[in-house]
């Protein structure tokens, strides 16, 4: 697999391309121009960037107003602040009032590592899942990020996109299609399925390679679209795989795993099932890599869980 650039940079490049073609594209930032890699965007299109200062509630509120007049607004701020501090603005001014703001949660999950829990966003998917009228997209690689940003510029609905700042590996080839509400299947084995989202897809893919060496055939899906969700794909995978592991850089409460479980349960699917994510506890401290390794969101960790799950399932 080839290494790409950080999704953050892929986002910023896409913004530049969009702004070149459409004067209505606006980036709105809260002292987050540098963290959002938008310094160059600001130089190229100084009239298409608005700075509001360190004021995330204002960021979202005024973005809603801008969007109501037909501007294509991308409100860009660290996901931790954007989705916690501004939650009421998101709920009322963006979603309920149906102002099509694109909320860009940068350095999401535990990307900020040792800066600690104030800077982690392990709640963002859960809280926004509980709010009506917003698409939630968690891209895994540069391709998915670019597609998600382009899609956001087109749809006339609120969109939330969250990603991290580490360089990502390319997961897709040139034939891959990206669609809202459709997961992307990276491989199709029938023993064990990894349903993963965001930066964790890569780790699931690496783990699947290890498992396959031991004869365990794997499915790997990048579930970039959390809302709307690809129920059909999930059910289809559940029908042909014996075991399933969901993986997310998010609290296990209210995230991808619980979403899958609730769908599988309601459709009466029975299979060995495991949710891997950040547990509901005082998050271990350290870098993003440390935190991933600690909670098994890593090639090694997922390999182990996968092997155990498949072996237990056979012995039953």
């Amino acid at each position, binding site marked *: 697999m080839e290494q790409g650039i950080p999704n953050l940079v892929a986002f910023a490049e896409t913004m530049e391309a969009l702004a070149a073609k459409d004067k209505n594209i606006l980036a709105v*930032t809260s*002292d*987050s*121009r*540098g*963290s959002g890699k938008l310094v160059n965007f600001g130089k190229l299109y100084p009239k298409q960037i608005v*700075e*509001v*200062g*360190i*004021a995330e*509630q*204002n960021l979202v509120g005024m973005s809603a107003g801008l969007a109501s007049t037909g501007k294509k607004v991308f409100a860009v701020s660290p996901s*931790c*602040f954007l989705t*916690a*501090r501004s939650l009421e603005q998101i709920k009322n001014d963006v979603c309920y009032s149906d102002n099509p703001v694109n909320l860009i949660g940068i350095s999401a999950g535990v990307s*900020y*590592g*040792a*800066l*600690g*829990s*104030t*800077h982690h966003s392990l709640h963002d998917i859960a809280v926004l899942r509980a709010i009506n009228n917003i698409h939630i997209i968690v891209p895994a690689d540069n391709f998915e990020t670019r597609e998600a940003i382009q899609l956001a510029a087109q749809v006339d609905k609120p969109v939330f996109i969250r990603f991290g700042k580490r360089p990502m590996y390319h997961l897709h080839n040139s034939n891959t299609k990206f669609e809202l509400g459709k997961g992307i299947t990276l491989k199709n084995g029938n023993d064990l399925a990894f349903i993963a989202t965001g930066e964790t897809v890569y780790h699931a893919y690496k783990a699947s390679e290890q498992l396959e060496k031991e004869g365990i055939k794997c499915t790997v899906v990048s579930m970039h679209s959390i809302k709307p969700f690809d129920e059909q794909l999930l059910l289809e995978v559940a029908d042909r795989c014996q075991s399933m592991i969901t993986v997310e850089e998010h609290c296990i409460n209210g995230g991808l795993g619980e979403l899958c479980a609730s769908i599988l349960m309601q459709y009466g699917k029975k299979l060995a099932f495991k949710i891997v994510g950040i547990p509901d506890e005082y998050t*271990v*401290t*350290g*870098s993003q890599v*440390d935190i991933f390794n*600690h909670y098994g969101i890593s090639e090694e960790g997922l390999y182990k869980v996968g092997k155990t799950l498949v072996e237990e399932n056979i012995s039953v």
Partner: protein
Amino acid sequence: MLTIELEKKSVAYRKKILYYIKKANAGHTGGSLSCIDILNVLYNNVLNVNPENINSPDRDRYVQSKGHSVEALYVVLADKGFFPVSDLETLCQYKSHYVGHPTRKVNGIEQNTGGLGHGLAISAGMAMSAKMDNKDYRVFTLLGDGELAEGSNWEAAMLISHYKLDNLTAIIDRNTLQITDRTSNVLSNEPLAEKFAAFGWAVKEVDGHDFAVLSTILNKGAFEKGKPNLVIANTTKGKGISYMEDVLKWHHGVPSDEQYELALKELAEKELLLEIK
């Protein structure tokens, strides 16, 4: 503590701040250097708080609202004996309690901060409780000037003057810079003194690197009875290291090996000057 002793301490603190930031390869350098003289005065000359009384309900409280300058706080707390300074070797490492923002897992730290715009409201609660219980502890909080854009500060500012919490002192580390640019270009908060005065605060503007002035003013008690106290401390971001002073990129810049050596050299020269003073 005498001014000369405080001056010497600040040089030692600056060395340590840079050492730990260099070691962790991360940290908020500029803002730690702009507020270290204020923390120095607070912990060595003002606050009635030490490792012995840290659990006493009567202790003074300090809440660092601009939590990102945690390196300054760590270095001072270690010096005051709240924990062994060697603990800081683990800064930002796996399972270390010493993360990039203040947490209560570290002895001496009152509140978890890091999201900007929280400290003033928390301090209001602490100060109000003192009034309820007729206690005479004081509450101090340190804010960044960029941080003032958060609306929560102004909600708290209204609340605090409404309840006449004159046992609370907010200090603004007015280094005139934030991440993106100068605060006046990002979102101007001027005229700052007049704004707080209009919100019912007693305001004093001082040189945030003048130990004598800071010691006097912070030990004064209420500037005006019945009004909360605001100290606008004019500071220089990156203070003490020539090439960092007032330079935007040092907000969270980590010095290279060469830059680090140069910084140590400058601090050694300063130390020498103070020896012969």
